[in-house]
């Protein structure tokens, strides 16, 4: 049964790929300035597009301009654009799928139409699989299967070793420190909106941090840069407080919107740091140039700082200014790590195994590309890996 489930999608994809045959038509004319005109269904689109390609002659007098014409349903040629008298291509878009469209090019000399190019036609169709992304689909399927396998292992109670992540182990200490000092915990969820995966991951961690603050009775401040993030943060924190049996401790006013402006937000959060002097600061999400401004101000008020982002350019700043930094994947591992739930830990294990798979692919790719300089078969392996890991 499992084999059938695995093979069936592959068969479907193969069938779909073979079913996709774009209509191609082309022509050639030796006396005309336009030597050839080709029309074909635009690949990998949702339909409604035809790709047109033409070549020009170097031996025929160059016209002043060339007009691209399309044959209407009434049988009348109408212009859809003027183009330069050189080799070129163009995509005619917003067409009806399944209907045949015919094109020609007209050369104009001093405003008078000259020789016509041959006609070319094609039928726009919608594609059911993006051929440039098949490799990515296969890789995503492999990663997903590995992650689901380990989630299942976690559910069955298998002991899964997860390496210690210092920054996450320190979360409880940071909240505890804030409680002892009687100062608030400041949580900064980055400057991007809810359509950013890092902000989503940050909201998930916020839920866990809010559970800790509810448990310890600390005050939690969440200034946000986006109104949607504020709404999500309010709901997340409220649910966490409810879950911990402390709905009375939830303060909606502590989770507020400041501004959408990047440096306006940085100034607002800096102000909160200086005035409120939080004992613990969490900076988890997407950050840009404001990362160091926030982290250095937080450091100046003596807060314990835990930062995390997947932005490679901001990680060095956080490492320099914060006590703990979650680097890239650790940000996404945080929720599972903090919860200790077996099925979430299983997904972490799956993530690590998928990473190991990619490390092996990279090593094979590097070796194949190097050896491929002298040995053909290795070059083919390298080309294959390059193809399946590229996104069209």
């Amino acid at each position, binding site marked *: 049964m499992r084999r059938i489930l695995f093979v069936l999608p592959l068969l479907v994809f193969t069938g779909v790929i073979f079913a996709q045959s774009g209509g191609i038509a082309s022509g050639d004319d030796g006396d005309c300035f336009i030597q050839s005109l080709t029309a074909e269904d635009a690949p990998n689109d949702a339909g409604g597009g035809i790709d047109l390609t033409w070549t020009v002659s170097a031996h025929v007098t160059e016209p002043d301009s060339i007009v691209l014409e399309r044959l209407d349903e009434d049988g009348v040629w109408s212009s859809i654009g003027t183009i330069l008298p050189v080799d070129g291509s163009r995509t005619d878009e917003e067409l009806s799928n399944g209907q045949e469209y015919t094109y020609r090019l007209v050369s104009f000399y001093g405003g008078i139409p000259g020789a016509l190019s041959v006609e070319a036609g094609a039928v726009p169709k919608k594609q059911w699989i993006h051929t440039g992304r098949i490799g990515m*689909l296969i890789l995503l399927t492999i990663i997903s299967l590995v992650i689901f396998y380990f989630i299942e292992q976690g559910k069955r109670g298998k002991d899964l070793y997860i390496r210690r992540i210092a920054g996450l182990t320190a979360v409880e200490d940071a909240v505890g420190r804030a409680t002892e000092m009687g100062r608030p915990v400041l949580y900064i969820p980055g400057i991007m909106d809810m359509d950013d995966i890092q902000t*989503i991951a940050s909201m998930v961690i916020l839920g866990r941090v809010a559970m800790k603050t509810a448990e310890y009775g600390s005050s939690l401040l969440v200034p946000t840069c986006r*109104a949607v993030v504020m709404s999500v943060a309010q709901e997340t924190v409220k649910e966490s407080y409810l879950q911990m049996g402390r709905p009375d401790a939830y303060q909606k006013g502590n989770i507020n919107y400041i501004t959408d402006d990047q440096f306006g937000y940085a100034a607002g959060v800096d102000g909160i740091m200086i005035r409120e002097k939080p004992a613990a600061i969490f900076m988890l999400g997407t950050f840009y140039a404001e990362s160091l401004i926030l982290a250095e101000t937080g450091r100046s008020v003596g807060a314990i700082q835990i930062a995390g982002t997947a932005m490679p350019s901001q990680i060095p700043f956080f490492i320099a200014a914060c006590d703990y930094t979650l680097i890239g994947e650790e940000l996404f591992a945080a929720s599972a790590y903090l919860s200790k739930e077996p099925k979430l830990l299983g997904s972490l294990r799956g*993530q690590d195994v998928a*990473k190991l798979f990619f490390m092996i692919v990279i090593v094979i790719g590097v070796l194949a590309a190097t050896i491929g300089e002298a040995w053909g078969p290795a070059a083919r392996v390298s080309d294959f890996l390059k193809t399946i890991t590229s996104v069209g």
Partner: protein
Amino acid sequence: MRLFVPLTITFVAGIIMILQFFVPATQSMGESLQEWYMIVASFAIFIGAANLLQVHAHRIRFKGRNWKYSPVTIVGFTAMVLTGLIFGIEKGTPFNFLFLEMVAPMSATMFSLLAFFVASAAFRAFRASNWRATLLLISAFVVMLGRVPIGAMIWDRIPLISEWIMQVPNLAGQRAVMIGAAMGMVATSLRMIFGIERSYLGGAD
């Protein structure tokens, strides 16, 4: 029902977004979802503005901690909104004047602070306390030297070494972070789409 509805919405939206990436014929569904998000986000701006006014009005009314800053926020916010609504935002309007003469210089000031923060962070990070910090110090010194004319004047290979550090070890490190993050993104997305991760719903089962 409290869990079923949000989990179903998350599942359907997540599957549509994955599908539209691989199946061009379903791209319009993905585009529609993104348009819906934009509509929701546009309405949320009003919620954000209302929250801003509410929080600061509350602080002024009850003379909360540091309440004296709140009137500044409310006056600034009201001035920008009213001038924009009444006179428009074109060149020469009061809104444009306020933006160019107040908002832009204040943003530039915040950005300029970065130079001082970089200096203080670099001072801490580049202290040669152990062999790794020493390695970082040497690499940073070579990279910075290679980016200014005096580097090439000292030795014409310094810019090349600087470029090598940026393009080989630095880029390899950045790619490693990106690959790891991509794995994390896939795992997080799967956990949320299939309802395995529920802490954003309060961790309820």
